[in-house]
């Protein structure tokens, strides 16, 4: 179904109330994030492929903290916004969200468990698609310890340490990244010595990763990072009852004390 036209009308309407709307723009045949400030620019509005718009929102809000902004969010982007807001990286009071549902093909490509936003949205464009079960995660679960080691060894040995996974992640905002610390990740070593780089990153995504797949999509080596992060996400849900991006009130579990029966 055509999402571009309803999206264009929704943004046009929103432009009356905000200083700019963050969405995708197509120029020279390629699509990139863009801050639309006027109606005439909307002729070049695009709907896909997806980029990490929350990360761009943070960039703009840091420079213009008082600006009222709109943003077009898919399911994963909305989850990303919620997690960023909890960590004081974004001020949601000044943000209006236009929801965009992913098509079944897009949901399939991203193996997404919730390909539509529902928490922050005021307007919603597109029909909600069915959640998709992640086959790669199931396959990994079936392997035994030695097979898993072989699987990850084969993948991690192709890592060129480009930091794309860290750069593309909407949740990675630390000014001093642990992965750039010489103590844990030596400079000049490619691939990074097994297994520190990737397992540190995996640990840091616990309680934060919303499953947007930007890391995996940006990886030049095609490492299936999100299979590992998806398993951790399930564990965090099982152990602490916490789902990243599900609601604004739940606090991230790893910074809270344990509930102890006294």
């Amino acid at each position, binding site marked *: 179904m055509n999402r571009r036209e309803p999206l264009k009308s929704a943004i046009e309407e929103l432009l009356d109330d905000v200083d700019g709307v963050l969405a995708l723009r197509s120029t020279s045949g390629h699509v990139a994030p863009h801050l639309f400030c006027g109606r005439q620019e909307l002729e070049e509005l695009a709907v896909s492929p997806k980029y990490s718009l929350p990360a761009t929102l943070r960039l703009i809000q840091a420079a213009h903290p008082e600006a009222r902004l709109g943003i077009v969010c898919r399911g994963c982007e909305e989850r990303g916004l919620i997690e960023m807001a909890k960590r004081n990286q974004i001020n949601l009071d000044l943000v209006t969200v236009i929801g965009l549902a992913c098509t079944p093909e897009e949901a399939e490509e991203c193996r997404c468990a919730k390909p539509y936003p529902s928490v922050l949205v005021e307007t919603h464009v597109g029909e909600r698609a069915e959640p998709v079960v992640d086959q790669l995660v199931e396959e990994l679960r079936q392997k035994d310890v030695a097979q*898993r080691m072989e699987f990850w060894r084969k993948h991690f040995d192709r890592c060129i340490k480009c930091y794309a996974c860290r750069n593309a992640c909407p949740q990675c905002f630390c000014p001093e990244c642990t992965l750039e610390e010489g103590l844990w990740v030596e400079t000049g070593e490619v691939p990074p010595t097994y297994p520190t780089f990737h397992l540190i990153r995996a640990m840091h995504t616990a309680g934060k990763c919303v499953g947007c797949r930007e890391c995996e999509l940006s990886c030049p080596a095609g490492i299936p990072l999100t299979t590992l992060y998806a398993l951790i996400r399930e564990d965090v849900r099982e152990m602490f009852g916490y789902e990243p991006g599900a609601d604004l009130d739940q606090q991230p579990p790893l910074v809270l004390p344990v509930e102890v029966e006294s």
Partner: protein
Amino acid sequence: MWGPQIVAYACTYCSYPGADLAGTSRIKYSPNVNIIRVLCSGRVSPELILRTFREGADGVLVLGCHYGDCHFISGNHRTAKRVAVLKRVLEYSGIDPNRLRLEWVSASEGARFAQVVDEFTETVRQLEPMERVLA
């Protein structure tokens, strides 16, 4: 004969005095363990544990205070959560999670310290040397 190399991170206020007590009480425990004193078990980050494995430790033992006894109030709470998640991460990456263990040992529990260390050494002895796993 290969003996496993175990690194134990013991916190200053509870588990290290506990280890000390084991020593002064002349309780024998496994000589394979290398004890490193840290200020609080909360200081033991996942990065540190992973680096320890990479440097050749076959097993890592993290020792802290019982809940409510932590000198820094909630340091041990953080450790508990982190180690639980890290064990799962190790499991999914093909590293046996039994190589990492978290125990609460108080300053008066010298015998318990020895028991934990001995048990853990035996568990790790059954596994392959870490060097071979990471080679």
